[in-house]
């Protein structure tokens, strides 16, 4: 059992508050992704948990035990760093062996432990190399092996795929869930890549400026983002955001897009006549016939394929740009005039002034540690 809990943690550097009264609980065996732009405080949070820096206020519990005042070497966590942080003067074997040496394992136990984890990560053949002689991918795997080898109950992974190329990153992304599941460890995984976040996280904590802005499953974050900022961070192409003012008619609440009424599903009555922003995921838009009800006339500006999707930039008669995405190989329109339709069910409505999503249950302020 090794759940992880941060309780009202504050960290300041000089006058700057890097973590602002942050509380967070990660369940035993859960993988929690910390996602956010650089400077959001993700790495600082990991280091606090690891014990290499100390919080100014608040407590850190691992497996229910207060670890706040314990030095790093007694916390029993494993950590992989963004820049790998391999020991340049030691071979890959010795690098991986360091956690086992610390707990005074026997030579044979060390050998067996290193071998098995190296096998798992497919670096068995480079164990005698120094980091300088390793490729980037091998370095990254060595760093990961070092974090895993002692089977620590808590694993901290600080953007471990940041410095490897796209192909390796993809490969590792698919490989990691199994590795982590096998270990049964509680994982905190830091990344700036929304795909990694969605692929690996049981839950995602979206951080910004030292505060958790939203905490939820990938599904919740993607489909019910707390605000515009978060909606923009997830998804490629980025969500379309258009200024609208909802109105009401007999069929319900609708917004006008290029003189076409698009009806929305959702409890948006309070927003009638207010300044809003509608968020339309590119994949929730599709090319349709002119005869389709609520078809919006557009002109196609450019078609840009993207990883098995076709992304089309279209412009409405009022000059607004919209991105439409569809699976490669499905019919669409690549030039000239066209019509698109909006899936009103998946449309998101935001308050223009605050940026918060209307009807968002998740607009919780986690600053003071209130539960979601």
């Amino acid at each position: 059992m090794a759940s992880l809990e941060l309780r009202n943690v504050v960290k300041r550097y000089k006058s700057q508050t890097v973590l602002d009264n942050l509380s967070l609980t990660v369940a035993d065996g859960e993988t929690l992704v910390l996602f956010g732009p650089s400077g959001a405080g993700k790495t600082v949070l990991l280091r606090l948990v690891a014990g290499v820096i100390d919080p100014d206020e608040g407590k850190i519990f691992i497996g229910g035990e207060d670890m706040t005042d314990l030095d790093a070497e007694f916390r029993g966590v494993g950590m992989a760093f963004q820049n790998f942080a391999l020991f340049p003067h030691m071979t890959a074997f010795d690098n991986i062996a360091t956690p086992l040496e610390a707990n005074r394992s026997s030579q044979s136990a060390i050998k067996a432990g290193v071998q098995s984890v190296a096998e798992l990560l497919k670096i068995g053949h480079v164990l005698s190399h120094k980091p300088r002689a390793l490729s980037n991918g091998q370095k990254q795997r060595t760093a990961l092996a070092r974090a895993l080898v002692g089977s620590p109950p808590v694993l901290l992974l600080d953007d471990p795929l940041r410095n490897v190329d796209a192909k390796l990153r993809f490969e590792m992304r698919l490989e990691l869930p199994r590795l982590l599941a096998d270990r049964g460890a509680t994982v905190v995984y830091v990344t700036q890549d929304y795909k990694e976040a969605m692929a690996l996280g049981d839950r995602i904590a979206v951080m910004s400026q030292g505060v958790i802005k939203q905490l939820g499953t990938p599904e919740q974050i993607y489909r019910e983002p707390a605000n515009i900022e978060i909606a923009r961070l997830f998804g490629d192409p980025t969500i379309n955001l258009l200024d609208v003012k909802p109105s009401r008619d007999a069929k319900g609440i609708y917004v006008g897009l290029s003189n076409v009424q698009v009806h929305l599903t959702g409890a948006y009555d309070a927003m009638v006549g207010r300044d809003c922003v509608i968020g339309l995921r590119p994949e929730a838009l599709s090319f349709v016939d002119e005869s389709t009800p609520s078809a919006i006339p557009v002109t196609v500006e450019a078609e840009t394929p993207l990883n098995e999707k076709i992304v089309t930039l279209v412009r409405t008669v009022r000059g607004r740009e919209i991105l439409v995405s569809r699976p490669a190989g499905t019919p669409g329109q690549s030039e000239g005039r066209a019509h698109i339709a909006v899936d009103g069910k998946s449309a998101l409505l935001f308050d223009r002034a605050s940026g918060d999503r209307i009807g968002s249950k998740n607009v919780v302020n986690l600053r003071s540690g209130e539960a979601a």
Partner: protein
Amino acid sequence: MSQSALAISGVDKFYGPIDRGVHAVQNLTIEIDKGEIVALLGSSGCGKTSTLRMIAGFEEVSRGTISVAGRKVHTLAPVKRNVAMAFEGYSLYPPLTVRENMAFALKAAKLPKSEVDAKVASIAKLLEIEDILERYPSSISGGQQQRASLGRALIRQADLHLLDEPMGQLEPQLRAVLRGRIKHFIKERGLTAILVTHDQTEANALADRIAVMEGGVLQQFDTPDMLKQRPANLFTGTFVGEPPMNVFEAYIGAAADKINLRLPDGLSLDYDKDAFSGAVRDELLKRERVVIGIRPYAVRRSKDGVPATVSANQWLGDQTHIAADFAGGSLVLVEHDRTRLELGAPINVSIDPKNLHVFDQSSGAAISHGMELA
């Protein structure tokens, strides 16, 4: 004389003495039509940047000729080639504001001020840098500098626009829409653009045709669709496409009316002989060992497929990536719906011979794509 916008003919580049130095670009011949967007794609050291620098005139051509708009330019100074360039390191003039940087070439060409202002305003709007026009390069972010640098290149009226890794540092949220706008801008004005990139996603998004380079040698020059459907060799096959192509080594065997492809660790894919055209079948049966490739989106789940277990199931919002392990290997499949599969769940995957790419085991050259010979 041809009317192509750019004709590179038999170009070699040596660093060091000719024929003895490092052979960075080897006998490159490419012709690009006016109005085309072409990407030079490859990993670092593949020769793409040397090629670009030779076109721009920053690097001497060791052998061969380069013509821009029908004019032989490879011996001219860069300034006389009528080529605009956006540099990878941005190279904005530090003492000038973003506006002055962008207007620099136009002012030098003595355009009237009103026209310069109008052009700057329209490009600034396109690249979303209107609010930083009066700022200096040192005070804006990397992504903004990259957009300013792009603007400085696109604003010029030139025979050729060279863009060196033009979008690598862009803010991810802006990338898709800027790709669309830039492509539209180039097409609308009939500009000819050459884009150098290591990112195949970038190349696929923007280019009409892509020249894939590796080790100084042009591997294939074709449309994005053709690169995916008919890769000339294993290198292009695996380099282009994300997620990357699934690749296996396989032994070829024939039995009665079947052709089977045996993977080293046991799994055997059995196909009816009729699944391949006669020519392909003959070509395959000549060999013992080949490399087979299948694109992740062409892998299907079907009851009569190969039994496998799910080792990863990752939903990215609009795609699901699934990794499946089977005896002796694993492969990746992509589905556009939200698929929910537990880790360890059994599935059956099938590889339609129509989507099978076969490569020569030693040279890597393509042998067949589906029913057709390469």
